[in-house]
Every structure is written in C-alpha cells, then in structure tokens.
C-alpha cells in the first residue's frame, strides 16, 4: 500500500491519503521560499543537507494523513519544518529542539520500505519511499520521500543515515561546536562539591577526588590501576560504610590479587571496626549485555508505527512485558539495594560491592542505597549531586554505554536509564518523599541523548578533562566550557522547570537540634558528605571521630566474608530481605527516613509517562494522575499567595505547618496549562487544544485466541441454562 502511494507520486486520481495541499501546489508555490525554511539554528549548528516536499505522517498510519515540509539534517539534529504555520506554542518547550527535531544522538533506528532496518554502509544510490525513524526518547517519525526531487531525497536519506548511524569521532559530536560558539558561563553549581582526597596518581579511570580507607597506602593505590581499591560511597550514622570497587580478575595459579583483596578488605574492616560484607554484583545481577537485550525488547512495545499492530499486541501485553524481563531487572536491582541497605541499617556492617569495571551496576546499586537511606538525595539538589558523584565522577562510561559514536567495539547498554527506572519505582511508591517530579526524571532520561551537555558525554573525569582541554580554542588557557545538564535553563524556561518539582513534597519540619544531639552524635548529612574533611587530609582523619567513639563501645569485631561467596539468590537471602521489608513496613512511614520499595509483582510497574507519552491511542484525555496533582498545585499556589499576604502584614506564622513554605512553584505552570489546553495522561509532553474526541476503540479483539483451550467448553454454555443447554 505504501509503495503504491509512493509510485502514484501525487498524480493519482484517487489519493489514498488525506493531505492539506496537493504536492503539485507545493512544488509550484513553495519552491521559491524553500531556502529560508530551516529551524532556528543553535550556535555552531550547520545544515548538511535538506529536501523539500517531504510528507510527515501523523502517527495514525491508517489514515495516511500527513503534513508537507522540509526535512533537514544538521550537525545537531534531523529536523522537519512544516510548510504550515506553526500551530501553537507548546507549554513544555525544549529550547534546544522542537517536537519535530531529533538530535542525532537520539536517533535509535532507521527503517526503510517494508520496515527494513537500515544499517550504515549499504545505502548507495538508493533511498526508500518511506523512512521511519525510531528515537531513543521513544518518538516515532514517518516520512515519505516520494514527493521530493530524486536528487534531494537521495541526499537527505544518505545524509541522515550517515550522520546518525555511521561511526564518527568524538569531536564530531555537536557539543564541541556548540561550546566553541557560545560563551557559556562556567561557574554554575548545580550540585554540591562532594569529593575529597587528592589524586596524584597516573590513571584516568578515577575521579579527581576520591576517598579510600586510611590504611590503604599510596603504593596500594597504583597496584592494579585502581582495581580492587575500595572507594568510599556513603557512611551510615552507625559508622559503617558502603564501598565500591572494580573487581580484579582472579587467576588460578597467582594468588597475589587475592592477597591484595584480603588486604583491602582488612583495610575497610579495620577502619570501622566492623565486619565487611562483599557482594560481587556480577554473580547475581544481569550483565550489561543482558540489560541491553532486555531493554531492546521492552522498548519495542512503545515504538508504535502501526496502530493495528499496537492493539493486536494489547491482549498479550502482560506476558510480553513479563517475557522481556525488563521489570524483573529493575526488581533485581532494587532488591540488591535493599539487601545492602539491610546490611548497613540492620547489621551495621560495611559493604563492599564490586563488579568488573566497577562503574555500571555498582553505580546503580550504590546510588539506590543512598536514595533509600538518605533523604538528602531525594531533594532536587541532592539527587543531582548523587548522579554527579556516583555516575559522572564515579566513572560510569557514559560515552561507551550510550554509544554516541556508533563504534562496533563498545558495549552499549542503558545502565543509567535502568537506574532512573528504579528511582521512578521508588518515587511512584513513595511520592511525597521526593522533591523532584516524574517529569523531571523523564526529562533527565531524554537529556542523555542531547549531545550538548558534557555531563553524559565522557567515560570518566580524566577523559573529560583531557578532551575539553585539547578542544579548547585557547590552548594555553582554560579548558572548553560546556553546559552541564543540571543547568536546566539551557533546555527549559522557568515555567517549564516548575514542573520538575513535586507538589506533594514537603520539607522536613525543623526539629529542635539540641534534642537531636543527645541521641545522635552526628547529623547524617555531615557523615555522608564530609565537607569538613576538606581541611584535614581525609585519608587520615575522616572516619577518625566515629572510629574513636565506637572503639569504646565495641571490641574489634571483624568478619570477612570474602571468598565465602554466598549466593544471594538463595531463598534465605530473599526471605531475609522480605522480613526486613515487613519489619520496616509495620512502622509508621517517615518520608524523611529510610525508604524501602515494595517488590511484589503488582508493585513494580511500567513508567507510563516516559513510555506511553507519544502514543495517541492510549492518552487519557482529561485524566491521568496530572488531573489530581494539578488540583494540589492549585491549592498550593493559593496557600503560598495567602502566605505572602500574611507576611506583608507582618504576621508571623506558626511554623509547625508541614509544607507551609515549599519551594514548589508547580502551581502557576499547571494552572496556566489547565486554562489553555486539555490535560491528558501525557502531560506535559503532549498538550493540545484540539483533541479529536473520538475514543480509541480496540480493534481486532481476537477472541479465538483467548478462549481456545481454556476452561473447557464453559465459553459455549448458556448463562442461565439448565443442563440441556450445555452445548
């Protein structure tokens, strides 16, 4: 059907699609103005090629309805500029790219005619009449090239394929030309400085600053290029701490690494007078390849270019979801984090998590543990610090894992997305505990694929530093200044940013600090973010206070479980985790305290906002959770306005009101949205004034599929028949 559409070339007497203008009209009228048609280019953005009279189908493929426009490929994006006047200003507009723009790094797959996957290289001199682009943020674009000039169509198709799929060098990423052409102020602080301990060693894998136990010598540091070196992540108020490390491959005949590991463990244990529990994550959690495979299957459920297929797959939705295993991987990560939390919280033992490389699942688990234990990381600032600390400085290989460069030898894997998925699960189970909103997480997950920010562009700090220095136009001076993703104003205006805060969040009511001191010697915060340690050489003194205190209480108790390698898949562990959860659950829920996820089947869910936002058929018009949240925001706005008025009167308000002065400014944005457009479950990503009010009616309800082989012949029976009607 599609090819026939293509060959008809608009000359057909009976068009099989609905268009606002005929192609002939466009050719005659729009040709002269073609050159002006391009999006507002960003600094440093260059147009590579373009083609006019490209038809962009709207998502419903059955109607073959579409809009004509110009398709361009720049060094930043693939962009479609409609010939029609822009309809409406979107509330939640990304300043870097519009709804018809796809940043090059965001292109996931390109398909040609008959849904044939296009891989780089084999496109010489050919171009499909229909091109489908699947994006990493789950948008789907379908373009028809059959109305364009052959030369243009060929050029744009090859251009897009070349720039989106072929291997390229890092300096081709748009960030470099963007940064060279903007004077970005470099001194923003969107997350706290957090890492101490200086680096004077020669390897790049590690962040500039990191913390190790004090009795690890400088000689130890260099031994295995930092492998096996326990790096401090977070300290529990009891004094025990979480460490992570890259595991050293163990060779049979050589037991040097083993001795080294023993030494490191002793160092961890010694430091805090507790036992150490080691967890090799590679034993129990899926590999990065497993994660990629599972996610690739999972995302297909949402990349919809055919509504009929979509509804066909609907009946088997739950089992398909189950079979792809993505939710199960999320559950396993959360479960592992709960196990570690239990060790820290209940058993007060040090935990050393390790894996090969030490910067994939170690990052997932260690950041989840900190989110569960430390309410600071559930604030906006805290969360950004956490990502910066555990992921960016912690050396997660963002460049390799997102494979922006399309290199064959790199292991691509959505590990960071997996982490965000886990955070979303926690957030939807315990909404009021998080200062940031679901929308914030969704936007953050999209930002991984916007090659403007350097945050997610490099494999580690050393990599970043050397590259930015090398790319700097002023070779002798400062390195290239690039925006960090945390500067949200680069992407969104203030109003849109208001949607990042969660109206349910309330700050912890201030407690009398004198009371606190008596039973808790140190504030949790001070322990987990040792800013005071800047003064003293941290390798020597950071844990000293706690250690001295605890030395008096506890004798030297040390138990290394190294090499015992208890399989944590054993039913024992999971039942212990379950008990731990149940014990926690019976206590009243404190949103500013320990937070554990429920891992039962029904509790782990699909991140609807992220995955369903672009699928028109499943948008709940006028509904969805936003309908409720917007009411909360509305009242919050009123309360804040009243507060301001009372303040003006000089009235001091009794401060025992939770949420009396929240930062949240969500109110204005949502109210503005409410008044102008209809909210839907896809808010704020899709808003429109002119919804079609036609409900989506599931097609192809394949009944035979369902009843065959089930329940005998029950289905054939009469509702209220006696035995005679039992067919």
């Amino acid at each position, binding site marked *: 059907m599609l090819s026939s559409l293509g060959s008809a070339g608009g000359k057909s007497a009976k068009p099989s699609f609905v268009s606002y203008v005929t192609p002939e009209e466009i050719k005659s009228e729009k040709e002269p103005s073609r050159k002006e048609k391009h999006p507002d280019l960003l600094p440093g953005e260059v147009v590579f090629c373009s083609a006019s009279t490209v038809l962009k189908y709207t998502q419903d493929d059955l109607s073959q309805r579409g809009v004509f426009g110009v398709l361009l490929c720049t060094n930043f994006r693939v962009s479609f500029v409609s010939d029609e006047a822009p309809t409406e200003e979107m509330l939640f507009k990304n300043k870097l790219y519009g709804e018809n723009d796809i940043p090059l790094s965001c292109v996931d797959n390109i398909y040609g005619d008959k849904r044939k996957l296009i891989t780089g290289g084999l496109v010489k001199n050919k171009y499909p009449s229909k091109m489908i682009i699947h994006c990493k943020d789950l948008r789907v674009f379908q373009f028809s090239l059959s109305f364009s000039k052959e030369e243009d169509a060929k050029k744009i198709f090859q251009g897009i394929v070349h720039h989106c799929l072929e291997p390229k060098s890092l300096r081709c990423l748009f960030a470099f030309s963007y940064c060279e052409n903007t004077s970005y102020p470099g001194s923003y602080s969107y997350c706290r400085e957090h890492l101490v301990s200086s680096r004077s060693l020669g390897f790049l894998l590690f962040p500039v600053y990191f913390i190790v136990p004090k009795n690890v010598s400088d000689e130890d540091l260099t031994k295995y290029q930092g492998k096996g070196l326990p790096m401090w992540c977070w300290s529990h108020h009891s004094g025990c701490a979480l460490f992570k490390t890259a595991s050293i491959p163990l060779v049979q005949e050589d037991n040097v690494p083993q001795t080294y590991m023993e030494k490191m463990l002793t160092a961890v244990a010694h430091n805090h007078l507790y036992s150490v529990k080691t967890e090799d994550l590679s034993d129990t959690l899926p590999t990065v390849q497993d994660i990629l495979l599972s996610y690739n299957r999972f995302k297909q459920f949402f990349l919809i270019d055919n509504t009929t297929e979509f509804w066909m797959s609907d009946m088997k939705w739950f089992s398909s979801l189950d079979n792809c295993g993505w939710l199960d991987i999320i559950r396993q990560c959360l479960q592992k984090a709960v196990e570690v939390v239990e060790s820290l919280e209940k058993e007060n033992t040090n935990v050393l998590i390790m894996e090969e490389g030490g910067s994939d699942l170690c990052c997932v688990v260690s950041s989840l543990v900190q989110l569960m234990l430390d309410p600071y990381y559930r604030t906006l600032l805290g969360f950004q610090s956490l990502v910066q600390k555990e992921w960016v400085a912690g050396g997660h290989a963002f460049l390799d894992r997102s494979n922006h460069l399309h290199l064959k030898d790199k292991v691509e894997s959505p590990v960071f997305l997996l982490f965000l998925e886990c955070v979303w699960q926690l957030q939807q189970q315990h909404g009021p505990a998080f200062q940031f909103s679901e929308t914030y997480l969704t936007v953050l997950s999209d930002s991984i694929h916007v090659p403007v920010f350097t945050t997610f562009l490099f494999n580690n700090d050393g990599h970043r530093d050397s590259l930015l220095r090398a790319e700097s136009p002023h070779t002798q001076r400062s390195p290239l200044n690039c925006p960090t993703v945390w500067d949200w104003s680069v992407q969104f205006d203030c109003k849109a940013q208001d949607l990042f805060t969660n109206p349910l969040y309330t700050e912890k009511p201030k407690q009398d600090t004198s009371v606190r001191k008596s039973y808790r010697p140190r504030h949790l915060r001070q322990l987990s973010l040792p800013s005071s340690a800047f003064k003293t050489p941290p390798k020597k003194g950071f844990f000293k206070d706690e250690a001295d205190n605890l030395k008096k209480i506890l004798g030297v108790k040390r138990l290394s479980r190294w090499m015992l390698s208890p399989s944590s898949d054993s039913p024992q562990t999971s039942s212990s985790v379950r008990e731990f959860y149940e014990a926690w659950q019976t206590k009243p829920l404190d949103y500013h305290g320990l937070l554990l996820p429920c891992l039962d089947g029904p509790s782990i869910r699909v991140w609807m906002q992220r995955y369903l936002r672009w699928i028109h058929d499943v948008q709940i018009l006028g509904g969805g959770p936003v309908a409720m949240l917007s009411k909360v925001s509305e009242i919050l706005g009123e309360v804040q306005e009243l507060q301001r008025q009372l303040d003006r009167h000089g009235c001091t308000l009794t401060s025992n009101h939770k949420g009396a002065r929240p930062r949240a400014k969500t109110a204005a944005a949502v109210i503005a949205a409410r008044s102008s457009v209809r909210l839907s479950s896809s808010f704020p990503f899709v808003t429109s004034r002119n919804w079609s009010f036609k409900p989506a009616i599931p097609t192809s309800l394949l009944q035979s599929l369902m009843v065959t082989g089930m329940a005998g012949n*029950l289905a054939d029976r009469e*509702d209220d028949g006696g035995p005679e009607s039992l067919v």
Partner: protein
Amino acid sequence: MTAPHVTLGEVLPERAVQNRLTNPGTENCSLCDPSVTLNVPLGAIGRVEKMGGASSRGENSYGLDITCKDMRNLRFALKQEGHSRRDIFDILFRYAFPLSHGLLLFAYLSQEKYEENGWSVYKPMEEFRRQGLPTDKWRITFINDNYELCDTYPTILVVPFKATEEDLRKVSTFRSRGRIPVLSWIHRENQAVICRCSQPLVGMSGKRNKDDERYLEVIREANGTAKLTIYDARPSVNAVANKATGGGYEGDDTYQNAELVFLDIHNIHVMRESLKKLKDIVYPNVEESHWLSSLESTHWLEHIKLVLSGAIQVADKISGGNSVVVHCSDGWDRTAQLTSLAMLMLDSHYRTLRGFQVLLEKEWISFGHKFASRIGHGDKNHADQDRSPIFVQFIDCVWQMTKQFPTAFEFNERLLMTILDHLFSCRFGTFLYNCESARDTNEVRSKTVSLWSLVNSDSTSYLNPFYTPESSRVLYPVASMRHLELWVTYYIRWNPRIRQQQQSPVEQRYMELLALRDEYLKKLEELQLTDSSPNSSHLSNSSASNAASPTQHINHLHTPF
C-alpha cells in the same frame, strides 16, 4: 508452637453468630499475635468445611476451613478434644446459609436506624424526568404494573410513543423472557437513546416477527438515526449457538435499517472461572515469579477490557447521535454492564454520589440483574452454576474509570469497596433477590434497611476531595491493557504486605493544604479587620484587592465535603 485452640462454641453465643463471626482466636497466618480480631460477615461466607478428623496428626490439621465470597479463605485450627468443632460448625453452617435452613436473611433481623432513608434515593419517575422524559417520541407506560408483561422488569417503563400497549405485548412474545427493548437513557441534545432488551427468539428455523422489526424501526426513527446499531454483547459464536435453544440475534436481512455488532464478552461461567483463577494467584500469597504472566492467564483484566471497550462503543455511537439497542442473552448481566458503563461515560450525574446510587438502582436492581442467583445470598449450594461475579466485574470497571479520571467522580474508592462488601453481607436489603417482583413479594423496602441509608448518613466519608464537576463532558476511558490495572486494594486487601492507607498521600497532602488555606484566610480576615484603622488604610486597601482573587477562587472551588 502449639496450635491455638479456640473453643468457638463458647466464644460465640448464638446472637453474635447472627451476622458476623467475631472471635478472639486466630487465623493460621498470624499465630504470633494472640489478639487478632477477625470480622467476617456471615453473608460473605460461601462454604464451610471441616478439615481433618479425630485421627489427624500434625499442627493445625484439625479445624474449620471457611471459603469467603470476598477473596479470602479462613482456616481455624481447633483442639481435637471435646466436640467443640461440631457445635461451631453446625452454628456457622446454619447461620451462614439461613435460606437453606428456613431462616430469614440477616437484613430482616437487623434493627439498624439511620438518619436517611436510602429507599427514597431512586424514584423512577423523577429519574426519567431528569433525563427530560417523556418527550413527543417517548412515553412512560405502566403496562408492567403487575409484572404481567415481564416479571423481571420494573413496573415503569419508557417506550416509543408510537408503540401501543398491544404492540408491546406482541413484541414481548418474541423476546427472551418478555424483556422487550425499553429506553434506558436519552441524550438531551441529539435525542439518541440507549435501549436494552434480551435476545430475539429466532431459533433454528430463523423465525421472524414483524412486530419486533417494526418496533426497532420505530426506535430508530425517533431521532432520525440512519442506522440503528444493535450491540450484541456476546461473541458471535455464542449468539449463533443460542439459536439451538430458541434464541439468536437480529439478522441483517430481516432488520433492514439496523447493523448488528458483536462485542465478544464472555458468559457468566467464564467470568466465574476467571475470578477464581485470580484468587488463586493473590491469596493467600501473591504469586511472585512471573506475576504478569500469571495475571494474564487469569484473563480477568482482558474481560474488563472487553466490557469497557464495548461500553465505549455504545457511548461513542450515542454521542454521534445514533440510537443503539443493547442485549446479550437475557439482558440482565452483560447488558446491565454495558448500559450502565455507557451511561456513566455519557452522563455526569451518574458520577455523583447520589447519581451513582440511582444508576445501580435503575440499571442493575430494577432491571433484574439476578443478585440472588449470582451471589447466592444465604444459600449453602456453593457450587451453584448460576453464581458469577458479574457485578464485581462492573464495579471493577467503574474503579478503572475512577483511576483514569481521578477528578471526574464525586465518590471515592471506599464507596466501591463498601458496595462490594454489602453485596455479600446480607445486612441491607439493597442487593437481595433477583428482581423487583420478588422484592415486592418479600417486602424488602418495608422490612429491610437500604445500603444507601448507611452511605448517605455518613456521605462525607465517601466523597472524593478532587472531584471537579464537568457536566458536558463524555468520559472515554482508555480500554488498553497498558492502562488497566489490577485493583490491588480490593483483591489483595487481605494480604498484610499491601499497605492499607486510610488516605492516599496525594489526598492527605491536599486536605492539609485545604485546611491551611482556610486557616490563612481566617487570619487574613482578622488582620484586615484590625488594620482598618485610618493610619494604615493605604496598606489595607492594597492587600484587600490582592486578597480578592484567591477568595473568589475559593468560592467556586468549594469542594463538597
């Protein structure tokens, strides 16, 4: 640990057994807590069985096993000595199934008094008047005053103005159990109607009935619908199979200006088995491995999807100005689901607390959904093939809608739970008996209390604080598995791992903010009063004008509590 021994016979004097089982004993799963109190309305008991015998050995092997209609099973371990079990078993068996023992249902013994009289919630004439009836095309008839036309229909019916009483009698001979097409709902603007009925008696020979054909034609003509859509709720194979027993469906050739659409919803037996499977995977423990596949294999949500998408199609046709006729086999199970859900989507009145009660009274109770047979009130025959959770399924559909549109319904989840609890409890007369004629014979209205008495005497606790009335909007839920969820707080509520929250955190926060707003408003008012002294007039002026906007807001925001 020794098995807890409860001498139930001693603990439970007969009076207490009358309606509920209260005991200081314990359920198997909570042995460690001796103070567990369990409340089970006797009406919710579906089956009582002895487990183990005098010679049984092993912990907790001897006792009682009680299967409940509300998704739980209870097991009581008893001491083997004495004959304690026999007594409690006999008492339970007798009072849990009073109808099988010549006793009265508890609703007839209850002496409860409420401020409100729930029986006055639904007055058919008032409801029809609210819909704008009668019109010049539709009239109200009392032909069924003595249940002579149809013994399972209510007394007051709305029929096409053009159809005479004689026509109605003739049509009733061609419709299963005399359930002729009658009006359920009319669209105020476009006058499209939802009619409900039972299947036509076509039979193997493909009988025709000119009166029936003409009758449907009259329905079509009433608002100038081009083609009357007949929604047959059944899968087409079942509809065909029904011909063998004298039933069938409207053939294309005989009903000229009508189109027939099958909605593929399965029968009561399939639904019963589906819920049984669901219970297996959630009670006593939630299936852990491959939860989603297990959930899918119950097909429960799939059935919900089909019912909802059927109702969406009905509502969509009506909004488009086309009249529809809905039927299944007898028109009291699937038909009631479809018409009432479509009405819920189309008419915002039914989304209010009172309106929803009217909807249930009208579409379910008065039009003869066979509550007695489907639930088996007070009947010991637990394996009765007539039992089926059709109404539970409907309430689940409503819950799915409230979930998708959290601000569109005036009532909250608690109302739905309460309705389901008392669907079984036999404490109120509301859901007793199969039809109006049986209710009249048994004097339900005069001898029992209505569930709505309970609800409306304490209506605030059934209200949704987020409710935002929007009168003109049609509410189309998305009938995709992507959005359908298992109603965990109902089906898995007996699982201790499911945190039963009094209020959702969102609701809690909202209420806090509302209280705060009121407090601040009061304070501001006080301040403005004191500020109105001459020397501070400037300041008070400016703040008064500022204050005006939020106060105005509040006036029309006043959410009903």
